[in-house]
């Protein structure tokens, strides 16, 4: 259940449009069903009133859209940021990827988001979803109305939410939360406890499903290179599914490596993966290692912080010790 209603967001957007603070609004647009909302830019009040939407399926991270949306126009853009989006917002500012002056950020509290993808895995022929407090009512075409607890349908990344606190905004709707003491590394630790053979089998199984759609790369707010290494036709990388098991491993290791130290752990990669690969576990491994080798670091917590991978100290652990320490044995 979201603390702030659609109307509160809509009224704020209309007010800011009317008083000239902003010229455009980046928000969620209703889709065919209530669970397939899409990010969209609204240019005027009529479009807003007609299609603007805010519900428990508005999981997409808006920060990455700011790069393209602020680059092509001088107009000022209103953006609604959930706490996890605000970390990416700061990280992109740190990297000078968009112009802060062109953006008016309104922080919106988030009660955790549901995942349309997961819902359709659980329930067939969903026609409508409504959330009332802790209960979710799912209307289906053939099975009638089904009721679920909000918690059970919560998307994976929201179950391990790292923070309900906004780290960047111009204005805040509702109450700001706290940085949470999450258990997001539990799954990584479980994998670390396995034997190498088990881990290899686990990742082989997960990564072999990859169809190389590049959705994880395209949605990632840290992956913002205009020319990606994987798009280079001379790189020898096969941009297609199941070319070889090596390709899958290389793609996912390098993808995660390229955002190591800059990944804010927003979980978008796993959210968009059509093959349900737990990609966030790769990113979290890097975050966990960085925290244990070089001290706690949260990308995007503040603007201008130096990512650990472009920094060093003279007494860093040696790579030979790193593997042992990565298991939490040191």
């Amino acid at each position, binding site marked *: 259940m979201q603390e702030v209603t659609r109307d509160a967001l809509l009224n704020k957007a209309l007010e800011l449009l009317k008083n000239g603070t902003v010229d455009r609004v980046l928000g969620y647009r209703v889709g065919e069903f209530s669970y397939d909302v899409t990010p969209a830019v609204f240019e005027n009040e009529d479009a807003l009133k007609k299609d603007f939407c805010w519900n428990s399926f508005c999981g997409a991270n808006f920060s990455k859209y700011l790069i393209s949306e602020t680059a092509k126009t001088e107009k000022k853009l209103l953006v609604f940021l959930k706490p996890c989006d605000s970390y990416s917002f700061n990280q992109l500012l740190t990297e000078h990827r968009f112009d802060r002056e062109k953006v008016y950020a309104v922080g919106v509290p988030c009660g955790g988001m549901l995942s349309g993808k997961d819902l359709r895995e659980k329930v067939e022929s969903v026609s409508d979803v409504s959330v009332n407090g802790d209960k979710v009512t799912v209307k289906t075409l053939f099975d009638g109305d089904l009721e679920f607890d909000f918690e059970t349908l919560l998307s994976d990344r929201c179950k391990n939410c790292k923070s309900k606190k906004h780290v960047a905004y111009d204005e805040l709707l509702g109450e700001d939360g706290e940085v949470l003491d999450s258990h997001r590394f539990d799954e990584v630790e479980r994998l670390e406890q396995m034997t190498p053979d088990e881990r290899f089998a686990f990742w082989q199984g997960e990564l072999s499903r990859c169809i190389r759609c590049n959705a994880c790369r395209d949605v990632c707010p840290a992956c913002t290179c205009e020319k990606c290494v994987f798009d280079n036709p001379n790189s020898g990388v096969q941009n297609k599914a199941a070319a070889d098991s090596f390709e899958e491993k290389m793609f996912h290791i390098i993808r995660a490596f390229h955002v190591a130290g800059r990944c804010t752990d927003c979980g978008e990669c796993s959210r968009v993966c059509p093959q349900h690969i737990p990609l966030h576990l790769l990113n979290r491994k890097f975050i966990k290692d960085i925290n244990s080798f070089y001290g706690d670091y949260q990308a995007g917590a503040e603007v201008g912080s130096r990512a650990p991978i472009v920094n060093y100290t003279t007494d860093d652990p040696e*790579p030979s010790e790193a593997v042992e320490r990565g298991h939490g044995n040191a």
Partner: protein
Amino acid sequence: MQVNEYKPLIVAFCCNWCSYAGADLAGNNRLNYPADVKIIRVPCSCRVNPMFILRAFQRGADGVILCGCHPGDCHYTSGNYYTRRRMALLFSMLDYLGIEKERTRVEWVSAAEGAKFAATMNDFVETVAALGENKRLEDLRCKK
């Protein structure tokens, strides 16, 4: 004569200023190290991108070793400090995916350490030979 004795293929990335000179010194001093080690000279150990290491495995390497100047002695002041962080993270990730951690190594070898270079390579070749062929990061398309 054993014809089918298994010989690992080792790729060694050596920095131009220390380790490559160290390898040279090992040669000048007539120290033995296995011919299975193929040295690739790089301007600095931090020139080595994680992709280089994965590529080496793809193209048939059984082990990859990266040699650079001792921390603090980098010709470019700080290159090897960055290498140290990157490789620590990369190796930890390879281990996380279940790839044998003995196949990758970073060693700091100075230009004066010909003996260390030879000893390191002997030891590494022995370790990798004991592991056998690289199966977990092989690319079947690259097999001869």
